[in-house]
């Protein structure tokens, strides 16, 4: 029976080359969606761990004020759980000049002086080689190499040090330049001391600790802090802390893209199911004939499944490869910005799995309805395609109404097609909402509650800013980094605004509890609340940079989109008391109608250093642009998939209703009227699918994605009216184009052929 099933399957493919090609085209698009989703999702989900493994990142990075290497070693080496330690002297800012691509470029860098025997500790080399001990060698971070076009062999100057680039590396303990303010350059510590610091002392200010038992990290951190007398400004960064640091820049969008991958795969699955089901239900008559010839229901199901899989395998392979290729560049850019490594090669196992899943889904989608049809009595099946009875007479014979009724006469199929289209459209709406939100959050700080456009620093900044024409309001803003007092591996940021703060900062949206009012009260971001198990009524104990500590009572949990949600808002008095050495900046709100650039010039003219408040992604415009580009590529691919579903459903309808179309043509229907009939059918589909898509986005996809990135709080992933209007307009065009294409094809067939069959 199996060989007969295969023979029928091959015959089915040969007999309908047009339908086979149409099905293949739909499967290619589903493959593109799956390839896009798997490439983006897997690369982002694994990029951090891959980079950490390749670099051999330390379990703990201790940073402190400069101290003699022997003094630091005397404190750290005796720790019980430490396997090895490397020390660095980190200097910033250092004037940097490089000659690359035929031009000299200037900037400032963070120079890391490393020990020769640990020269590659924490670095993953991506080009050239590491430091060998020879004079005049430098390794530069990949972000700098990409931005300036540097390659091994290019000359480099750092203050008085002159040498050449010998290697390019990634150090995944922070985001990359230009997301980070300064690029990192690695020299031998002796070069740093001799040519940059010009000192003979062997001072260090960072230690990279590799532990024997990484799971005993908290105890080691407590021991290290207890043993750190004489070492000032001590802070620890752990792997978890590094991940949090990196997440500050990319976690939100990375999480959103992974969530999208899940949603996109669901949409592809729904589309495959709809296509396969439609294909088989149009062939009920043939199934009846085959049953009459002795095919068993299971054999028939296998035959249709084999036929579908024979088309699906090559089509999905093409689609998945194409999808992976389409987003490879944007994904690599995104990973580059996060100092993470792209997968070493194509994700063959994941892509093979995606292809296999698509083929299996296609097989199931064709096999199951064939099985269901074959189980019906042979006589009933032999009557051929089931032209559904109408539900009451039509009010008019206008072609567009007739077309809608033809589509509505098969509510089951219409529902499956509508769900597939709705899933894809909802994905598009979600992507557009995300893209719009990211753009707003980057360019319009008010989107995340911030009313200030500029940040000014300098002596008497507050008075000077308030006295500048065009300033509507100004208030002090103090930001101090620290770690949780109980778990030193948990980084956090405390922020406070001075008097008049409410005029420049509206407060993050409150998710739980109430606003902080008293001096020792604090509102914590959702991410921090989740990490530390905090809730209103709880206590936050924070160890600040510099070693002081502050105890605060949690009154509320707020939505915090920046810094992985690990931010807490307290009073300026409390934060100042805890960190007296920290100098606040001034948040400046521009008066209505005043150009930000012009106001920045005015403040600078008063001797202040001014920065623009870049909202969610400080200094990260290219980064957010990359993500937005990625989201739009995926939205476009999803749109194509939608178009394919609409076309497929029309082709199936045309096959099933060939006789009706033939009758209408015999009665004098012109090609335009046949197109109107098909437009009516696709409008019926869209009339169900588009509202369903909006509901799906609001009720399911949006909350699902928000839930996957819950640490940031509730994201406002509501489609903008303009996006909604654009999507509706685009799909009306899709309906017209697909109806025109199908109608044109049907109008070219002889009426006798339509009346006979299609």
């Amino acid at each position, binding site marked *: 029976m199996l060989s007969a099933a295969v023979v029928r399957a091959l015959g089915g493919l040969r007999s309908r080359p047009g339908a086979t090609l149409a099905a293949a085209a739909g499967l290619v698009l589903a493959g593109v969606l799956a390839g896009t989703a798997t490439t983006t999702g897997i690369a982002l989900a694994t990029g951090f761990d891959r980079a950490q493994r390749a670099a051999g990142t330390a379990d703990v990075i201790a940073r402190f004020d400069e101290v003699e290497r022997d003094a630091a070693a005397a404190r750290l080496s005796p720790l019980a759980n430490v396997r090895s330690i490397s020390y660095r002297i980190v200097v910033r800012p250092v004037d940097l000049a490089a000659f690359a691509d035929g031009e000299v470029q200037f900037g400032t860098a963070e120079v890391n002086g490393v020990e020769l025997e640990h020269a590659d500790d924490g670095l993953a080399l991506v080009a050239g080689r590491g430091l060998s001990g020879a004079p005049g060698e430098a390794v530069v971070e990949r972000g700098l190499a990409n931005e300036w076009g540097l390659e091994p062999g290019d000359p480099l100057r750092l203050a008085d040090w002159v040498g050449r680039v010998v290697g390019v590396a990634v150090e995944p303990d922070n985001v990359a330049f230009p997301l980070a303010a300064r690029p990192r350059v690695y020299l031998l510590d002796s070069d740093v001391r001799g040519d940059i610091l010009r000192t003979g002392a062997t001072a260090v200010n960072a230690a990279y600790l590799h532990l024997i038992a990484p799971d005993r990290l908290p105890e080691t951190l407590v021991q290290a802090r207890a043993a750190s007398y004489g070492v000032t400004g001590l802070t620890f960064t752990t792997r978890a802390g590094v991940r949090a640091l990196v997440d500050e820049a990319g976690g939100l969008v990375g999480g959103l893209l992974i969530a999208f991958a899940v949603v996109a795969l669901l949409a592809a699955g729904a589309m495959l199911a709809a296509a396969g089901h439609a294909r088989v239900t149009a062939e009920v008559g043939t199934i009846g004939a085959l049953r009459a010839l002795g095919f068993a229901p299971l054999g028939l199901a296998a035959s249709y499944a084999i036929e579908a899989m024979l088309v699906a395998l090559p089509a999905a392979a093409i689609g998945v490869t194409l999808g992976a290729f389409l987003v490879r560049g944007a994904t690599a850019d995104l990973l580059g910005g996060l100092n993470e490594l792209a997968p070493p090669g194509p994700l063959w196992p994941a892509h093979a799995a995606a292809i296999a899943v698509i083929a299996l889904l296609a097989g199931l989608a064709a096999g199951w309805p064939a099985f269901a049809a074959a189980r019906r009595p042979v006589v009933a099946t032999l009557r051929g395609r089931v032209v559904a009875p*109408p539900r009451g*007479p039509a009010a*008019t014979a206008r072609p567009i109404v*007739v077309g809608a009724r033809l589509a509505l006469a098969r509510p089951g199929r219409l529902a499956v097609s509508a769900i597939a289209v709705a899933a894809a459209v909802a994905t598009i709406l979600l992507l557009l909402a995300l893209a719009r939100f990211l753009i707003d959050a980057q360019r319009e700080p008010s989107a995340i509650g911030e009313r200030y456009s500029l940040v000014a620093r300098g002596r008497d900044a507050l008075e000077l800013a308030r006295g500048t024409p065009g300033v509507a309001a100004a208030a002090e803003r103090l930001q101090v980094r620290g770690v949780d007092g109980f778990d030193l591996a948990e980084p956090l940021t405390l922020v406070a605004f001075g008097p008049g703060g409410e005029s420049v900062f509206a407060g993050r949206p409150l998710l739980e509890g109430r606003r902080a009012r008293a001096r020792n009260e604090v509102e914590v971001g959702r991410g921090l609340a989740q990490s530390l198990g905090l809730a209103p009524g709880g206590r936050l104990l924070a160890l600040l940079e510099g070693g002081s500590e502050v105890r605060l009572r949690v009154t509320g949990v707020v939505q915090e989109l920046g810094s992985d949600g690990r931010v807490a808002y307290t009073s300026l008095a409390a934060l100042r008391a805890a960190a007296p050495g920290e100098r606040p900046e001034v948040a400046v709100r521009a008066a209505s109608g005043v150009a930000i650039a012009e106001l920045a010039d005015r403040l600078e003219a008063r001797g202040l250093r001014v920065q623009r408040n870049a909202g969610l992604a400080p200094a990260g415009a290219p980064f957010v642009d990359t993500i937005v580009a990625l989201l739009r590529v995926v939205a476009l691919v999803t749109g194509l998939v939608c178009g394919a579903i609409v076309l497929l459903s029309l082709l199936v309808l045309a096959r099933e209703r060939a006789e009706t179309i033939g009758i209408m043509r015999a*009665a*004098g229907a012109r*090609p*335009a009227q046949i197109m109107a009939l098909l437009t009516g059918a696709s409008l019926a589909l869209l009339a169900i699918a588009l509202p369903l898509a909006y509901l799906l986005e609001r009720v399911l996809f949006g909350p699902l994605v928000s839930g996957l990135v819950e640490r940031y709080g509730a994201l406002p992933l509501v489609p903008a009216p303009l996006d909604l209007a654009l999507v509706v307009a685009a799909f009306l065009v899709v309906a017209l184009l697909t109806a025109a294409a199908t109608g044109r094809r049907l109008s070219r067939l002889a009426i006798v052929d339509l009346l006979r069959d299609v």
Partner: protein
Amino acid sequence: MGDPVISARGLVRVHGSGSAARAIVSDVDLDVATGELVAIVGPSGSGKSTLLHLLAGFDRPTSGTVTVAGRRLDSGSESARSRFRSANIGFVFQSFRLVPELDAFQNAMLPVRLARDASAGRSRVEELFERLGIADCARRLPSQLSGGEQQRVAIARALAMEPQVLLADEPTGNLDESSGAGVMGVLRAAVTPDRAVVVVTHDAALAEGAARILRMRDGILTAC
């Protein structure tokens, strides 16, 4: 007898190609005038229906010409041919071919709607329903009608635009004797000084009522 309203010259329709090519209609010449009822008889597979399809413009001949009411149907755009067919040719199928989603009246109104002639066409269709005795069936769906009623609705549809030519392909083939007799009467009545009727039939009684009977055998048309 009026002027020729249908004129076919050297009409050939070949199915298949190469060694599998087979002429279904061979070198047919035919003239039908208004006011004339012509019956075409012949065994199954002789090419009667194919000839009728060519005369209706449902199919294009392999060679030869078809002219209906002064217009060539073997050439021209599909859009123009559809418009012409809607106004000038009515067709009755053996198996009725009613649109199952539309009620009887809407089925008959279909060509009227397609020609955007709804206001004038509506009264014509209502009158036809009265004349054909199916006024009570107007709001019923095809599935709720008997075979005879369905064929009358199909005839009403064919006459809705008052065509100059009415073509009927085995119109009584799916009907019992009494229903067939009724349909025959309707077709005879459809012959007017401004209209020609061509009927393909096995029904000797229907053929006998025709002014002219032609025989088709192996694609060749001859006078009886």
